[in-house]
Protein backbone atom coordinates (compact mmCIF):
# COMPACT_ATOMS: atom_id res chain seq x y z
CA UNK A 1 0.00 0.00 0.00
CA UNK A 2 2.54 2.56 1.10
CA UNK A 3 5.03 0.97 -1.23
CA UNK A 4 2.95 1.55 -4.34
CA UNK A 5 2.24 5.02 -3.06
CA UNK A 6 5.94 5.67 -2.71
CA UNK A 7 6.61 4.45 -6.20
CA UNK A 8 3.83 6.59 -7.56
CA UNK A 9 5.17 9.55 -5.63
CA UNK A 10 8.58 8.95 -7.13
CA UNK A 11 7.18 8.96 -10.64
CA UNK A 12 5.11 12.05 -10.00
CA UNK A 13 8.05 13.93 -8.63
CA UNK A 14 10.41 12.89 -11.37
CA UNK A 15 8.04 12.74 -14.29
CA UNK A 16 10.03 15.18 -16.34
CA UNK A 17 13.36 13.49 -15.69
CA UNK A 18 11.87 10.15 -16.67
CA UNK A 19 10.37 11.70 -19.76
CA UNK A 20 13.76 13.14 -20.66
CA UNK A 21 15.50 9.81 -20.22
CA UNK A 22 12.86 7.97 -22.23
CA UNK A 23 13.13 10.48 -25.01
CA UNK A 24 16.90 10.15 -25.05
CA UNK A 25 16.71 6.39 -25.00
CA UNK A 26 14.26 6.35 -27.87
CA UNK A 27 16.37 8.71 -29.91
CA UNK A 28 19.52 6.75 -29.24
CA UNK A 29 17.84 3.64 -30.61
CA UNK A 30 16.21 5.10 -33.70
CA UNK A 31 18.86 7.59 -34.72
CA UNK A 32 22.52 6.98 -34.41
CA UNK A 33 23.28 10.66 -34.87
CA UNK A 34 21.57 11.52 -31.66
CA UNK A 35 23.96 10.27 -29.05
CA UNK A 36 27.05 11.82 -30.56
CA UNK A 37 29.28 14.29 -28.84
CA UNK A 38 28.75 16.91 -31.49
CA UNK A 39 24.98 16.62 -31.38
CA UNK A 40 24.88 16.88 -27.61
CA UNK A 41 27.31 19.80 -27.69
CA UNK A 42 25.06 21.50 -30.20
CA UNK A 43 22.07 21.05 -27.96
CA UNK A 44 23.94 22.65 -25.09
CA UNK A 45 25.38 25.51 -27.09
CA UNK A 46 22.00 26.50 -28.41
CA UNK A 47 20.44 26.58 -24.99
CA UNK A 48 23.33 28.43 -23.37
CA UNK A 49 22.14 31.94 -24.20
CA UNK A 50 18.48 31.67 -23.52
CA UNK A 51 19.31 29.17 -20.79
CA UNK A 52 21.13 31.92 -18.96
CA UNK A 53 17.96 33.98 -19.08
CA UNK A 54 15.97 30.93 -18.03
CA UNK A 55 18.01 30.68 -14.84
CA UNK A 56 17.16 34.25 -13.93
CA UNK A 57 13.57 33.59 -14.91
CA UNK A 58 13.60 30.67 -12.48
CA UNK A 59 14.52 33.03 -9.67
CA UNK A 60 11.76 35.41 -10.71
CA UNK A 61 9.15 32.67 -10.94
CA UNK A 62 10.10 31.37 -7.51
CA UNK A 63 9.39 34.87 -6.29
CA UNK A 64 5.98 34.68 -7.96
CA UNK A 65 6.80 37.01 -10.83
CA UNK A 66 7.91 36.68 -14.43
CA UNK A 67 9.25 38.89 -17.15
CA UNK A 68 8.01 39.25 -20.71
CA UNK A 69 10.61 41.87 -21.53
CA UNK A 70 13.71 39.71 -21.13
CA UNK A 71 13.85 38.96 -24.86
CA UNK A 72 13.70 42.63 -25.77
CA UNK A 73 16.37 43.48 -23.22
CA UNK A 74 18.50 40.70 -24.64
CA UNK A 75 18.20 42.25 -28.11
CA UNK A 76 18.93 45.75 -26.84
CA UNK A 77 22.01 44.56 -24.98
CA UNK A 78 23.28 42.62 -27.95
CA UNK A 79 23.09 45.52 -30.40
CA UNK A 80 24.46 47.95 -27.86
CA UNK A 81 27.43 45.73 -27.17
CA UNK A 82 28.21 45.23 -30.83
CA UNK A 83 27.92 48.89 -31.65
CA UNK A 84 30.10 50.08 -28.79
CA UNK A 85 32.64 47.34 -28.63
CA UNK A 86 35.19 49.10 -30.79
CA UNK A 87 35.01 52.48 -29.14
CA UNK A 88 34.79 51.28 -25.55
CA UNK A 89 36.98 48.23 -25.51
CA UNK A 90 35.79 44.78 -24.59
CA UNK A 91 35.64 44.86 -20.82
CA UNK A 92 34.03 48.30 -20.46
CA UNK A 93 31.57 47.41 -23.22
CA UNK A 94 30.57 44.25 -21.38
CA UNK A 95 30.17 46.16 -18.15
CA UNK A 96 28.08 48.92 -19.65
CA UNK A 97 25.94 46.39 -21.53
CA UNK A 98 25.21 44.47 -18.39
CA UNK A 99 24.51 47.74 -16.63
CA UNK A 100 21.94 48.62 -19.28
CA UNK A 101 20.29 45.26 -18.74
CA UNK A 102 20.29 45.91 -15.02
CA UNK A 103 18.77 49.35 -15.58
CA UNK A 104 15.89 47.91 -17.59
CA UNK A 105 15.45 45.32 -14.85
CA UNK A 106 15.50 48.04 -12.23
CA UNK A 107 12.69 49.91 -13.94
CA UNK A 108 10.63 46.72 -14.10
CA UNK A 109 11.45 45.99 -10.50
CA UNK A 110 10.53 49.48 -9.42
CA UNK A 111 7.17 49.23 -11.18
CA UNK A 112 6.40 45.85 -9.68
CA UNK A 113 7.91 46.20 -6.22
CA UNK A 114 7.26 49.82 -5.36
CA UNK A 115 4.23 50.69 -7.44
CA UNK A 116 2.52 47.29 -7.21
CA UNK A 117 1.99 46.95 -10.94
CA UNK A 118 1.39 43.32 -11.95
CA UNK A 119 4.50 41.94 -13.62
CA UNK A 120 2.54 40.91 -16.66
CA UNK A 121 1.60 44.50 -17.41
CA UNK A 122 4.82 46.16 -16.35
CA UNK A 123 6.94 43.85 -18.46
CA UNK A 124 4.47 43.90 -21.34
CA UNK A 125 4.99 47.64 -21.43
CA UNK A 126 8.74 47.39 -21.15
CA UNK A 127 8.84 44.66 -23.76
CA UNK A 128 7.37 47.17 -26.17
CA UNK A 129 9.44 50.20 -25.28
CA UNK A 130 12.73 48.36 -24.88
CA UNK A 131 12.44 46.83 -28.32
CA UNK A 132 11.41 50.22 -29.61
CA UNK A 133 14.58 51.69 -28.16
CA UNK A 134 16.71 48.91 -29.64
CA UNK A 135 15.17 49.41 -33.07
CA UNK A 136 15.45 53.15 -32.83
CA UNK A 137 19.06 52.87 -31.75
CA UNK A 138 20.00 50.69 -34.74
CA UNK A 139 17.43 52.14 -37.10
CA UNK A 140 16.21 48.58 -37.44
CA UNK A 141 19.35 47.45 -39.21
CA UNK A 142 21.20 44.34 -38.13
CA UNK A 143 24.52 45.12 -36.53
CA UNK A 144 27.72 43.22 -36.97
CA UNK A 145 31.19 43.52 -35.57
CA UNK A 146 34.33 42.00 -36.98
CA UNK A 147 36.19 41.91 -33.68
CA UNK A 148 38.12 38.65 -33.72
CA UNK A 149 38.71 38.41 -30.00
CA UNK A 150 35.05 38.15 -29.05
CA UNK A 151 34.26 35.95 -32.02
CA UNK A 152 36.97 33.52 -31.07
CA UNK A 153 35.83 33.46 -27.48
CA UNK A 154 32.23 32.97 -28.50
CA UNK A 155 33.06 30.05 -30.72
CA UNK A 156 36.02 28.68 -28.79
CA UNK A 157 36.16 26.10 -26.10
CA UNK A 158 38.03 25.20 -22.96
CA UNK A 159 38.97 21.59 -22.29
CA UNK A 160 36.66 20.61 -25.09
CA UNK A 161 33.69 22.39 -23.61
CA UNK A 162 32.49 25.42 -25.52
CA UNK A 163 33.03 28.67 -23.64
CA UNK A 164 29.37 29.58 -23.91
CA UNK A 165 28.30 26.29 -22.39
CA UNK A 166 30.80 26.81 -19.58
CA UNK A 167 29.43 30.28 -18.94
CA UNK A 168 25.92 28.89 -18.89
CA UNK A 169 26.79 26.04 -16.54
CA UNK A 170 28.53 28.49 -14.26
CA UNK A 171 25.33 30.47 -14.22
CA UNK A 172 23.34 27.36 -13.34
CA UNK A 173 25.63 26.60 -10.43
CA UNK A 174 25.58 30.20 -9.22
CA UNK A 175 21.82 30.30 -9.41
CA UNK A 176 21.46 27.08 -7.49
CA UNK A 177 23.86 28.27 -4.78
CA UNK A 178 22.21 31.65 -4.60
CA UNK A 179 18.81 30.06 -4.15
CA UNK A 180 19.90 27.43 -1.66
CA UNK A 181 22.51 29.05 0.47
CA UNK A 182 22.08 32.77 0.61
CA UNK A 183 19.75 34.79 2.71
CA UNK A 184 18.47 36.80 -0.24
CA UNK A 185 17.82 33.56 -2.09
CA UNK A 186 15.76 32.07 0.68
CA UNK A 187 13.86 35.30 1.13
CA UNK A 188 12.85 35.06 -2.51
CA UNK A 189 11.22 31.71 -1.77
CA UNK A 190 9.43 33.14 1.24
CA UNK A 191 8.15 36.16 -0.67
CA UNK A 192 7.04 33.93 -3.52
CA UNK A 193 5.29 31.56 -1.15
CA UNK A 194 3.40 34.36 0.53
CA UNK A 195 4.35 37.98 0.36
CA UNK A 196 2.17 38.96 3.29
CA UNK A 197 3.55 36.35 5.62
CA UNK A 198 7.11 37.08 4.58
CA UNK A 199 6.60 40.73 5.35
CA UNK A 200 5.11 39.89 8.71
CA UNK A 201 8.28 37.98 9.44
CA UNK A 202 10.25 41.12 8.74
CA UNK A 203 11.42 40.25 5.25
CA UNK A 204 11.70 43.17 2.88
CA UNK A 205 9.58 41.86 0.02
CA UNK A 206 10.06 44.96 -2.07
CA UNK A 207 13.78 44.42 -1.98
CA UNK A 208 13.40 40.83 -3.11
CA UNK A 209 11.13 41.81 -5.99
CA UNK A 210 13.46 44.55 -7.06
CA UNK A 211 16.38 42.17 -6.86
CA UNK A 212 14.86 39.49 -9.09
CA UNK A 213 14.16 41.95 -11.87
CA UNK A 214 17.65 43.37 -11.67
CA UNK A 215 19.02 39.83 -11.84
CA UNK A 216 16.84 39.21 -14.88
CA UNK A 217 18.15 42.34 -16.52
CA UNK A 218 21.74 41.37 -15.77
CA UNK A 219 21.17 37.88 -17.14
CA UNK A 220 19.63 39.32 -20.30
CA UNK A 221 22.68 41.58 -20.60
CA UNK A 222 25.07 38.67 -20.19
CA UNK A 223 23.11 36.58 -22.66
CA UNK A 224 23.21 39.54 -25.07
CA UNK A 225 26.99 39.61 -24.80
CA UNK A 226 27.18 35.84 -25.22
CA UNK A 227 25.10 35.78 -28.39
CA UNK A 228 27.00 38.73 -29.79
CA UNK A 229 30.24 36.90 -29.29
CA UNK A 230 28.93 33.79 -30.92
CA UNK A 231 27.24 35.38 -33.92
CA UNK A 232 29.38 38.52 -34.19
CA UNK A 233 26.12 40.16 -35.04
CA UNK A 234 22.71 41.01 -33.71
CA UNK A 235 19.39 42.29 -34.88
CA UNK A 236 17.09 44.49 -32.87
CA UNK A 237 14.14 43.30 -34.92
CA UNK A 238 14.69 39.57 -34.76
CA UNK A 239 16.69 38.72 -31.67
CA UNK A 240 14.90 37.28 -28.67
CA UNK A 241 11.39 37.35 -30.09
CA UNK A 242 10.43 34.13 -28.33
CA UNK A 243 13.02 34.19 -25.58
CA UNK A 244 10.86 35.26 -22.66
CA UNK A 245 8.11 32.79 -23.30
CA UNK A 246 10.56 29.99 -24.08
CA UNK A 247 12.31 30.66 -20.80
CA UNK A 248 9.05 30.67 -18.89
CA UNK A 249 7.92 27.44 -20.53
CA UNK A 250 11.23 25.77 -19.79
CA UNK A 251 10.93 26.68 -16.13
CA UNK A 252 7.36 25.45 -15.97
CA UNK A 253 8.07 22.26 -17.91
CA UNK A 254 10.83 21.65 -15.37
CA UNK A 255 8.09 21.45 -12.78
CA UNK A 256 8.20 24.86 -11.15
CA UNK A 257 4.78 26.35 -10.67
CA UNK A 258 4.14 29.91 -11.76
CA UNK A 259 2.40 30.49 -8.46
CA UNK A 260 5.77 30.88 -6.80
CA UNK A 261 7.43 29.67 -3.64
CA UNK A 262 9.15 26.62 -5.05
CA UNK A 263 11.51 25.59 -7.79
CA UNK A 264 15.20 25.24 -8.43
CA UNK A 265 17.87 25.91 -11.03
CA UNK A 266 18.42 22.21 -11.60
CA UNK A 267 14.77 21.65 -12.35
CA UNK A 268 14.82 24.42 -14.88
CA UNK A 269 17.93 22.93 -16.43
CA UNK A 270 15.99 19.70 -16.86
CA UNK A 271 13.11 21.63 -18.34
CA UNK A 272 15.50 23.26 -20.79
CA UNK A 273 16.92 19.88 -21.71
CA UNK A 274 13.51 18.34 -22.27
CA UNK A 275 12.55 21.09 -24.67
CA UNK A 276 15.89 21.14 -26.47
CA UNK A 277 16.08 17.37 -26.81
CA UNK A 278 12.52 17.32 -28.05
CA UNK A 279 13.31 19.92 -30.67
CA UNK A 280 16.44 18.15 -31.67
CA UNK A 281 14.63 14.82 -31.88
CA UNK A 282 11.80 16.19 -33.96
CA UNK A 283 14.27 17.69 -36.39
CA UNK A 284 16.35 14.53 -36.56
CA UNK A 285 13.19 12.56 -37.19
CA UNK A 286 12.37 14.89 -40.04
CA UNK A 287 9.09 16.17 -38.68
CA UNK A 288 7.91 19.21 -40.62
CA UNK A 289 8.01 22.66 -39.08
CA UNK A 290 4.27 23.03 -38.74
CA UNK A 291 3.89 19.71 -37.01
CA UNK A 292 6.88 20.47 -34.83
CA UNK A 293 5.16 23.60 -33.68
CA UNK A 294 1.99 21.66 -32.99
CA UNK A 295 3.85 19.08 -30.95
CA UNK A 296 5.70 21.77 -29.05
CA UNK A 297 2.45 23.41 -28.03
CA UNK A 298 0.86 20.13 -27.07
CA UNK A 299 3.87 19.05 -25.04
CA UNK A 300 3.76 22.22 -22.95
CA UNK A 301 0.04 21.77 -22.37
CA UNK A 302 0.30 18.11 -21.48
CA UNK A 303 3.29 18.37 -19.15
CA UNK A 304 1.87 21.33 -17.29
CA UNK A 305 -1.61 19.87 -17.12
CA UNK A 306 -0.34 16.61 -15.68
CA UNK A 307 1.94 18.44 -13.29
CA UNK A 308 -0.79 20.69 -11.96
CA UNK A 309 -3.28 17.85 -11.77
CA UNK A 310 -0.85 15.64 -9.86
CA UNK A 311 0.21 18.33 -7.45
CA UNK A 312 -3.42 18.98 -6.61
CA UNK A 313 -4.05 15.33 -5.94
CA UNK A 314 -0.83 14.85 -4.04
CA UNK A 315 -2.50 15.96 -0.85
CA UNK A 316 -4.49 12.71 -0.90
Amino acid sequence: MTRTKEIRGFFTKNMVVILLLLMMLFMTIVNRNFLTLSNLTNIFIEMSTYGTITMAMTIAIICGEFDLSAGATYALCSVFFLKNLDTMGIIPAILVTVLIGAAVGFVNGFLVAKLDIPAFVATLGSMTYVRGIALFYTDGQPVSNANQAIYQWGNGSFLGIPNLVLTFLLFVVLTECFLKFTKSGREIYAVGGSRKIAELAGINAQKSKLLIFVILGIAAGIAGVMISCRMASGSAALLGLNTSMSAISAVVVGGTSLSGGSGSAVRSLIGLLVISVLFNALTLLGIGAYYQQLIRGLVVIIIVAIDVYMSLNKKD
Partner: protein
Amino acid sequence: GGETGQTGGGTDAQKTDEGSAQAQDTQKDTEQLNIFFATAFMTVPYAAPMNTAMEEYAKENNINLQMVDGEGDSQKQLDQIKNAVTQGVDGIIYWPADAASTIPVVNYLAECGVPYVVLNSKVDASVQDKVPAYVGLDYEMAGGISGDLALDYLKDGGNVVVVEGVMGTEAQIGYLKGFEDKIAQNDKIKVLAKQSAEWDTAKAMKIMEDYITTFGEEIDLVYSEDDGMYQGIAAALSDAGLSDKIKCVCNGQLQFVLDQIQSGVLLGASSQDPSVEGRTGIEVMHKVIMGEEVPEWTKIDCRLITPDNVNEFNGW
Protein backbone atom coordinates in the same frame (compact mmCIF):
# COMPACT_ATOMS: atom_id res chain seq x y z
CA GLY B 1 -1.63 20.65 -48.48
CA GLY B 2 -0.36 20.83 -44.95
CA GLU B 3 2.72 18.88 -45.86
CA THR B 4 4.71 21.93 -46.72
CA GLY B 5 7.16 21.34 -43.98
CA GLN B 6 6.98 17.59 -44.19
CA THR B 7 9.66 15.64 -45.91
CA GLY B 8 10.56 12.07 -46.57
CA GLY B 9 9.23 11.04 -43.19
CA GLY B 10 10.63 7.90 -41.63
CA THR B 11 13.54 7.49 -43.95
CA ASP B 12 15.34 10.34 -42.26
CA ALA B 13 15.59 8.30 -39.17
CA GLN B 14 17.86 5.87 -40.88
CA LYS B 15 20.10 8.50 -42.28
CA THR B 16 23.76 7.83 -41.76
CA ASP B 17 27.05 9.50 -42.17
CA GLU B 18 28.09 7.69 -45.27
CA GLY B 19 25.90 7.86 -48.30
CA SER B 20 26.75 4.26 -49.14
CA ALA B 21 24.97 2.83 -46.16
CA GLN B 22 21.84 4.43 -47.47
CA ALA B 23 21.75 2.41 -50.64
CA GLN B 24 21.57 -0.88 -48.80
CA ASP B 25 18.48 -0.26 -46.84
CA THR B 26 16.42 1.33 -49.58
CA GLN B 27 15.05 -0.32 -52.60
CA LYS B 28 16.25 2.53 -54.79
CA ASP B 29 18.96 1.76 -57.22
CA THR B 30 20.52 5.18 -57.45
CA GLU B 31 22.05 6.88 -54.53
CA GLN B 32 19.65 9.30 -52.86
CA LEU B 33 20.95 12.76 -52.13
CA ASN B 34 20.27 14.44 -48.82
CA ILE B 35 19.65 18.15 -49.04
CA PHE B 36 19.02 20.30 -46.02
CA PHE B 37 17.08 23.55 -46.26
CA ALA B 38 17.56 25.99 -43.39
CA THR B 39 14.76 28.51 -43.75
CA ALA B 40 14.78 31.84 -42.01
CA PHE B 41 11.01 31.78 -41.56
CA MET B 42 9.01 28.76 -42.42
CA THR B 43 5.70 30.17 -41.31
CA VAL B 44 5.58 33.29 -43.45
CA PRO B 45 3.22 32.88 -46.40
CA TYR B 46 6.04 33.49 -48.86
CA ALA B 47 7.73 30.29 -47.72
CA ALA B 48 4.82 28.02 -48.54
CA PRO B 49 4.97 28.01 -52.37
CA MET B 50 8.73 28.08 -52.22
CA ASN B 51 8.78 24.92 -50.16
CA THR B 52 6.27 23.21 -52.38
CA ALA B 53 8.31 23.92 -55.47
CA MET B 54 11.43 22.59 -53.81
CA GLU B 55 9.68 19.43 -52.76
CA GLU B 56 8.47 18.85 -56.27
CA TYR B 57 11.97 19.17 -57.63
CA ALA B 58 13.26 16.89 -54.90
CA LYS B 59 10.74 14.23 -55.76
CA GLU B 60 11.53 14.40 -59.45
CA ASN B 61 15.22 14.02 -58.80
CA ASN B 62 15.17 11.44 -56.03
CA ILE B 63 16.43 13.90 -53.45
CA ASN B 64 15.68 13.63 -49.79
CA LEU B 65 14.87 17.17 -48.72
CA GLN B 66 14.78 18.16 -45.09
CA MET B 67 13.47 21.59 -44.12
CA VAL B 68 13.70 23.32 -40.77
CA ASP B 69 12.24 26.51 -39.42
CA GLY B 70 14.77 29.03 -38.18
CA GLU B 71 12.01 31.20 -36.69
CA GLY B 72 14.00 34.28 -37.60
CA ASP B 73 16.60 33.34 -35.01
CA SER B 74 20.08 33.42 -36.46
CA GLN B 75 21.57 31.39 -33.66
CA LYS B 76 18.98 28.70 -34.16
CA GLN B 77 19.92 28.60 -37.83
CA LEU B 78 23.57 28.14 -37.00
CA ASP B 79 22.75 25.24 -34.73
CA GLN B 80 20.39 23.66 -37.21
CA ILE B 81 23.09 23.80 -39.83
CA LYS B 82 25.63 22.33 -37.43
CA ASN B 83 23.22 19.52 -36.67
CA ALA B 84 22.73 18.88 -40.35
CA VAL B 85 26.45 18.67 -40.88
CA THR B 86 26.68 16.24 -37.99
CA GLN B 87 24.02 14.11 -39.62
CA GLY B 88 26.00 14.14 -42.79
CA VAL B 89 23.97 15.83 -45.50
CA ASP B 90 25.14 16.28 -49.07
CA GLY B 91 24.21 19.90 -49.43
CA ILE B 92 22.78 22.80 -47.50
CA ILE B 93 20.50 25.54 -48.74
CA TYR B 94 20.72 28.51 -46.44
CA TRP B 95 18.10 31.26 -46.31
CA PRO B 96 19.53 33.75 -43.80
CA ALA B 97 17.30 35.55 -41.33
CA ASP B 98 19.35 38.72 -41.59
CA ALA B 99 22.51 39.66 -43.36
CA ALA B 100 24.68 40.55 -40.39
CA SER B 101 24.22 37.27 -38.60
CA THR B 102 25.50 35.26 -41.51
CA ILE B 103 29.16 35.70 -40.59
CA PRO B 104 29.58 32.72 -38.28
CA VAL B 105 27.29 30.57 -40.40
CA VAL B 106 29.25 31.18 -43.57
CA ASN B 107 32.51 30.74 -41.71
CA TYR B 108 31.29 27.43 -40.41
CA LEU B 109 29.97 26.28 -43.77
CA ALA B 110 33.19 27.24 -45.48
CA GLU B 111 35.17 25.26 -42.93
CA CYS B 112 33.11 22.09 -42.78
CA GLY B 113 33.33 21.41 -46.47
CA VAL B 114 29.70 20.58 -47.14
CA PRO B 115 28.54 22.25 -50.36
CA TYR B 116 26.01 24.98 -49.83
CA VAL B 117 23.93 27.61 -51.55
CA VAL B 118 22.60 30.85 -50.12
CA LEU B 119 18.99 31.60 -50.99
CA ASN B 120 16.73 34.65 -50.94
CA SER B 121 18.88 37.06 -48.93
CA LYS B 122 22.50 37.99 -49.32
CA VAL B 123 25.08 37.39 -46.67
CA ASP B 124 27.14 40.04 -44.94
CA ALA B 125 29.54 41.84 -47.24
CA SER B 126 32.54 40.75 -45.17
CA VAL B 127 31.99 37.07 -45.98
CA GLN B 128 30.46 37.53 -49.41
CA ASP B 129 33.48 36.17 -51.24
CA LYS B 130 33.33 32.86 -49.42
CA VAL B 131 29.89 32.08 -50.76
CA PRO B 132 30.07 29.74 -53.76
CA ALA B 133 26.57 30.37 -55.03
CA TYR B 134 23.77 32.77 -54.27
CA VAL B 135 20.27 32.42 -55.60
CA GLY B 136 18.01 35.34 -55.14
CA LEU B 137 16.25 38.31 -56.39
CA ASP B 138 18.04 41.58 -56.94
CA TYR B 139 15.82 43.51 -54.56
CA GLU B 140 17.30 46.80 -55.52
CA MET B 141 16.57 46.10 -59.12
CA ALA B 142 13.02 45.02 -58.25
CA GLY B 143 12.51 48.20 -56.30
CA GLY B 144 13.92 50.03 -59.30
CA ILE B 145 11.33 48.45 -61.58
CA SER B 146 8.58 49.74 -59.32
CA GLY B 147 10.39 53.05 -59.16
CA ASP B 148 10.42 53.30 -62.94
CA LEU B 149 6.73 52.70 -62.99
CA ALA B 150 6.21 55.45 -60.47
CA LEU B 151 8.46 57.76 -62.39
CA ASP B 152 6.45 57.08 -65.48
CA TYR B 153 3.12 57.64 -63.75
CA LEU B 154 4.19 60.81 -62.00
CA LYS B 155 5.76 62.55 -64.94
CA ASP B 156 4.52 65.90 -63.67
CA GLY B 157 5.58 65.15 -60.15
CA GLY B 158 3.46 64.16 -57.21
CA ASN B 159 3.37 62.83 -53.70
CA VAL B 160 4.26 59.31 -52.68
CA VAL B 161 3.69 57.40 -49.45
CA VAL B 162 5.58 54.21 -48.71
CA VAL B 163 4.48 51.17 -46.71
CA GLU B 164 7.51 49.20 -45.64
CA GLY B 165 8.27 45.67 -44.55
CA VAL B 166 10.20 44.54 -41.49
CA MET B 167 12.99 47.01 -41.10
CA GLY B 168 16.51 45.79 -41.59
CA THR B 169 15.64 42.83 -43.76
CA GLU B 170 17.49 42.71 -47.05
CA ALA B 171 14.23 42.92 -48.97
CA GLN B 172 13.12 46.07 -47.17
CA ILE B 173 16.45 47.75 -47.65
CA GLY B 174 16.77 46.82 -51.32
CA TYR B 175 13.17 47.55 -52.26
CA LEU B 176 13.37 50.98 -50.70
CA LYS B 177 16.75 51.92 -52.10
CA GLY B 178 15.92 50.83 -55.63
CA PHE B 179 12.68 52.76 -55.54
CA GLU B 180 14.01 55.90 -53.97
CA ASP B 181 16.99 56.04 -56.31
CA LYS B 182 14.66 56.00 -59.26
CA ILE B 183 12.17 58.58 -58.10
CA ALA B 184 15.03 60.86 -57.11
CA GLN B 185 15.47 61.47 -60.81
CA ASN B 186 12.41 63.68 -60.75
CA ASP B 187 12.68 66.28 -58.04
CA LYS B 188 9.01 67.09 -58.28
CA ILE B 189 8.21 63.73 -56.74
CA LYS B 190 8.07 63.97 -53.00
CA VAL B 191 7.93 61.19 -50.41
CA LEU B 192 5.38 62.32 -47.83
CA ALA B 193 5.80 59.51 -45.33
CA LYS B 194 7.23 56.07 -44.71
CA GLN B 195 5.88 53.63 -42.12
CA SER B 196 6.61 49.99 -41.50
CA ALA B 197 3.73 47.52 -41.60
CA GLU B 198 6.12 44.62 -41.05
CA TRP B 199 4.85 42.66 -44.05
CA ASP B 200 1.46 42.46 -42.31
CA THR B 201 -1.76 42.95 -44.25
CA ALA B 202 -3.87 44.35 -41.43
CA LYS B 203 -1.14 46.72 -40.27
CA ALA B 204 -0.71 47.97 -43.80
CA MET B 205 -4.42 48.68 -43.98
CA LYS B 206 -4.31 50.70 -40.78
CA ILE B 207 -1.32 52.68 -41.95
CA MET B 208 -2.97 53.40 -45.26
CA GLU B 209 -6.13 54.56 -43.52
CA ASP B 210 -4.09 56.92 -41.41
CA TYR B 211 -2.23 58.16 -44.48
CA ILE B 212 -5.58 58.93 -46.03
CA THR B 213 -6.62 60.83 -42.94
CA THR B 214 -3.41 62.80 -42.81
CA PHE B 215 -2.81 63.58 -46.45
CA GLY B 216 -6.10 62.79 -48.13
CA GLU B 217 -6.02 63.30 -51.85
CA GLU B 218 -2.62 64.93 -51.68
CA ILE B 219 -1.34 61.41 -52.14
CA ASP B 220 -0.83 60.49 -55.74
CA LEU B 221 0.85 57.14 -55.39
CA VAL B 222 1.41 54.44 -52.81
CA TYR B 223 4.44 52.23 -52.90
CA SER B 224 3.97 48.93 -51.14
CA GLU B 225 7.13 46.98 -50.60
CA ASP B 226 5.34 43.71 -50.98
CA ASP B 227 2.19 42.12 -52.29
CA GLY B 228 0.81 40.88 -48.99
CA MET B 229 0.72 44.39 -47.61
CA TYR B 230 -0.82 45.62 -50.81
CA GLN B 231 -3.95 43.64 -50.01
CA GLY B 232 -4.49 45.81 -46.96
CA ILE B 233 -3.68 48.99 -48.86
CA ALA B 234 -6.12 48.09 -51.60
CA ALA B 235 -8.83 47.43 -49.02
CA ALA B 236 -8.23 50.80 -47.36
CA LEU B 237 -8.31 52.64 -50.67
CA SER B 238 -11.43 50.95 -51.92
CA ASP B 239 -13.18 51.56 -48.57
CA ALA B 240 -12.37 55.23 -48.87
CA GLY B 241 -13.53 55.24 -52.48
CA LEU B 242 -10.11 56.43 -53.58
CA SER B 243 -9.07 53.48 -55.73
CA ASP B 244 -9.31 55.60 -58.83
CA LYS B 245 -7.60 58.69 -57.46
CA ILE B 246 -4.71 57.13 -55.57
CA LYS B 247 -2.73 54.57 -57.49
CA CYS B 248 -0.28 51.98 -56.26
CA VAL B 249 2.78 50.11 -57.29
CA CYS B 250 4.18 47.16 -55.45
CA ASN B 251 6.57 44.24 -55.58
CA GLY B 252 5.53 40.63 -55.81
CA GLN B 253 3.05 38.58 -57.74
CA LEU B 254 0.44 37.33 -55.34
CA GLN B 255 -2.62 36.19 -57.32
CA PHE B 256 -4.49 39.12 -55.82
CA VAL B 257 -1.91 41.49 -57.26
CA LEU B 258 -2.24 39.97 -60.71
CA ASP B 259 -6.02 40.27 -60.54
CA GLN B 260 -5.75 43.90 -59.56
CA ILE B 261 -3.34 44.62 -62.36
CA GLN B 262 -5.65 42.89 -64.77
CA SER B 263 -8.58 45.00 -63.67
CA GLY B 264 -6.50 48.13 -63.82
CA VAL B 265 -6.66 49.07 -60.17
CA LEU B 266 -3.00 48.46 -59.57
CA LEU B 267 -0.60 50.17 -61.95
CA GLY B 268 1.84 47.35 -61.98
CA ALA B 269 4.33 45.37 -59.94
CA SER B 270 7.76 43.91 -60.11
CA SER B 271 7.56 40.15 -60.31
CA GLN B 272 8.83 37.83 -57.63
CA ASP B 273 7.79 34.21 -57.83
CA PRO B 274 8.56 32.17 -54.71
CA SER B 275 8.07 28.94 -56.63
CA VAL B 276 10.70 29.89 -59.14
CA GLU B 277 12.95 30.99 -56.35
CA GLY B 278 12.57 27.69 -54.53
CA ARG B 279 12.97 25.59 -57.61
CA THR B 280 16.03 27.52 -58.79
CA GLY B 281 17.52 27.27 -55.34
CA ILE B 282 17.40 23.52 -55.15
CA GLU B 283 18.39 23.17 -58.79
CA VAL B 284 21.54 25.18 -58.20
CA MET B 285 22.23 23.18 -55.07
CA HIS B 286 21.85 19.98 -57.04
CA LYS B 287 24.30 21.25 -59.63
CA VAL B 288 26.81 22.26 -57.01
CA ILE B 289 26.69 18.81 -55.46
CA MET B 290 27.12 17.24 -58.86
CA GLY B 291 30.19 19.38 -59.37
CA GLU B 292 28.74 21.50 -62.15
CA GLU B 293 29.74 25.10 -62.69
CA VAL B 294 27.26 27.63 -61.38
CA PRO B 295 27.36 31.42 -61.48
CA GLU B 296 28.14 33.28 -58.27
CA TRP B 297 24.74 34.91 -58.33
CA THR B 298 21.85 33.21 -60.01
CA LYS B 299 19.40 36.05 -60.30
CA ILE B 300 15.75 35.23 -60.10
CA ASP B 301 13.90 36.59 -63.05
CA CYS B 302 12.32 39.91 -62.23
CA ARG B 303 10.20 41.83 -64.70
CA LEU B 304 7.59 44.50 -64.70
CA ILE B 305 4.05 43.15 -64.61
CA THR B 306 1.56 45.30 -66.50
CA PRO B 307 -1.95 44.68 -67.77
CA ASP B 308 -0.43 43.68 -71.09
CA ASN B 309 1.74 40.86 -69.88
CA VAL B 310 -0.05 39.83 -66.71
CA ASN B 311 -1.11 36.52 -68.23
CA GLU B 312 2.49 35.38 -68.43
CA PHE B 313 2.77 35.23 -64.66
CA ASN B 314 1.63 32.64 -62.16
CA GLY B 315 0.13 34.09 -59.04
CA TRP B 316 0.76 32.41 -55.70
